[in-house]
């Protein structure tokens, strides 16, 4: 080292007026975030990659044809040719082969032609019941049945009802949850482990400013995160925002607040980052699965629905979908707003009580 200690510099007569501690703390949070490439990836890159991957996997395709077998015998060829179209694929097989294909699921239904036509299928399988209706309808019409009322099909593949339309709001909810939890819970415990919380406590810093800087940082971040994801969904997949952007931001802020509270709560006692990592996974895992991020939570049994609907991420996802897909206004969102507010206020209150400062 070549530096030579200098005499204390003359104190400046008019030092630059220092900015408030809250401003500096929040600015510090931003600087540290943007200087951490992995945090940037998990916040912006990961949800976009997830949306692209799932958007490709679940892209809209023409419906799969229904596979059926026609037992060989008189009338079998006629029936098979009457059936075959884009929707049904029929092959003529001898009885043993046809039954074997039915057992192994290669076909869902076996047609046994005759003066009384028999359908052999497993009634408990929804696609078999569907095949039964489709096949019978085709054959009856081919044999001359006429429908009393003419029918016109109006098929919908409009944006708004696709999987990606379902997915994008779920991903926004997921991102709001995980970046609030990690960005607050993990960071606070890291500061505590490094004794920085203690170091700052040895200054006149107000504890409220310290905690508020995290909340402010999250709130400002929502203004970045949500437009990026909504914009990406719109440009890449044509996912339309049907509701008001202000309502969407309001709901997102409320969601970020609720999860900021939870993040603070899991970090309030933890002494090392492993503990808080485990706690966060414990809190987030049920919501990851049960809150309708990737598939609708209505797939779970009715008995579980009240519990699932009480989860903050379920509330947030429901509200985001209502706004993005259905264009819902604030009035329609009373329940999720209530759930998120209660979660946020309760977890903040508990975290402030439990928080380990020293």
């Amino acid at each position, binding site marked *: 080292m070549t530096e030579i200690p200098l005499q204390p510099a003359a104190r400046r007569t008019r030092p630059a007026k220092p900015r408030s501690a809250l401003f500096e703390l929040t600015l510090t949070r931003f600087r540290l975030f943007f200087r951490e490439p992995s945090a940037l990836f998990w916040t912006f890159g990961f949800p976009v990659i997830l949306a692209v991957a799932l958007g490709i996997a679940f892209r809209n395709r023409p419906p799969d044809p229904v596979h059926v077998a026609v037992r060989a015998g008189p009338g079998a060829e006629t029936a098979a040719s009457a059936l075959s179209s884009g929707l049904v694929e029929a092959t003529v097989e001898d009885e043993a082969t046809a039954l074997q294909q039915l057992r192994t699921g290669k076909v869902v239904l076996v047609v046994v032609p005759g003066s009384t036509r028999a359908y052999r299928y497993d009634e408990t399988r929804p696609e078999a019941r569907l095949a039964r209706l489709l096949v019978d309808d085709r054959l009856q019409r081919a044999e001359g049945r006429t429908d009393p009322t003419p029918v016109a099909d109006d098929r919908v593949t409009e944006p708004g009802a696709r999987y990606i339309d379902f997915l994008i709001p779920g991903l926004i909810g997921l991102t709001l949850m995980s970046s609030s939890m990690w960005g607050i819970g993990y960071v606070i415990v890291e500061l505590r482990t490094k004794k920085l919380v203690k170091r700052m*406590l040895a200054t006149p810093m107000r504890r409220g400013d310290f905690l508020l800087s995290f909340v402010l940082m999250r709130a400002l971040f929502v203004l970045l995160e949500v437009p990026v994801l909504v914009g990406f969904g719109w440009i890449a997949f044509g996912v339309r925002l049907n509701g008001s952007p202000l309502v969407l931001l309001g709901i997102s802020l409320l969601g970020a607040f609720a999860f900021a509270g939870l993040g603070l709560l899991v970090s309030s006692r933890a002494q090392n980052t492993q503990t808080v990592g485990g706690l966060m996974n414990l809190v987030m895992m049920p919501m990851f699965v049960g809150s309708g991020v990737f598939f609708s939570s209505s797939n779970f049994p009715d008995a579980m629905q009240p519990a699932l609907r009480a989860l903050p991420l379920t509330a947030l996802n429901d509200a985001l979908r209502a706004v993005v897909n259905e264009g819902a206004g604030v009035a329609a969102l009373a329940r999720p707003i209530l759930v998120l507010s209660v979660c946020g206020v309760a977890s903040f209150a508990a975290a402030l009580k439990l928080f380990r400062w020293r």
Partner: protein
Amino acid sequence: MNDAACAVRCRAVVKRYGTGKTSVLAVDGLDLEVPSGECFGLLGPNGAGKTTTVEMLEGLLDPTAGDVEVLGMRWATDERALRERLGVSLQQTHLPERLSVHEVLTLFRSFFARGRDPDDVLAVVSLEEKRNAWYDKLSGGQKQRLAVACALVGDPELLFLDEPTTGLDPQSRLQLWDVIDGFKKDGRTVMLTTHYMDEAERLCDRVGVVDHGKLIALGTPRELIASLGGREVIELKLADGALDETSVAALPGVHGVRRVADAYALAAEPLHVALPALVDHLRAGALTLERLSTRRATLEDVFVSLTGRHLRD
């Protein structure tokens, strides 16, 4: 001392960690007064209770019993006012790795109502050239000077430094000593802990020697060394045989004899009286020297004579 003249005062302070049989008594009834403008050093081995003591004075730990008064105020009632007037450097501070030196100082400056310009403080700790370098790019000595700068940026009246130079290279220690000297020159109070006796001798007006949570000696470095009886130490090792310690201690100029492993350390003053007497005594007893050396007595000798152990043991 009246309140204005006394920067730190504590009476019968006790800190016990845990309860029941597993509890540890870290500080065992400490009484201490540090007048304003003094540089006071708590000297002791690791685990002696130095950090626990200063953290109680800094209001970061609550004493189990006893009374702590800093700048005439108490932590329970005047915490914010006290924090405005105190500078603290903890034993280990990991500042955020990806903040620049100037950003860290600006952040700490913002916590204080009154304080110094961050750039001025950077000059004081000679980090101007590193102004825009990230914390994780600094050397150990530079990190430690930044930690001290964070303590100085609030323009404190009382500065606490917990082992400011532990683990630093000699050059970095000298630089930090200069920083502390500069602060002392302004007539402000410094309270530091160290387990380096040379640091305590070099920086401190008064030293308290701590062992097992108790203050076992208190005074200026000169007084403490004088308490050994002599300011010089004669170290000698015999080829074989043993010294008659009582008769050696009675020799002119020799004020104490201590066995150190297979050798002896004699507190002596004046040396020109003690040495000839010692040589005569050895000759009379037909004892052969393997080696003999002399040096100035240090606080280390004070610690060894008080506890029978070395500071770094």
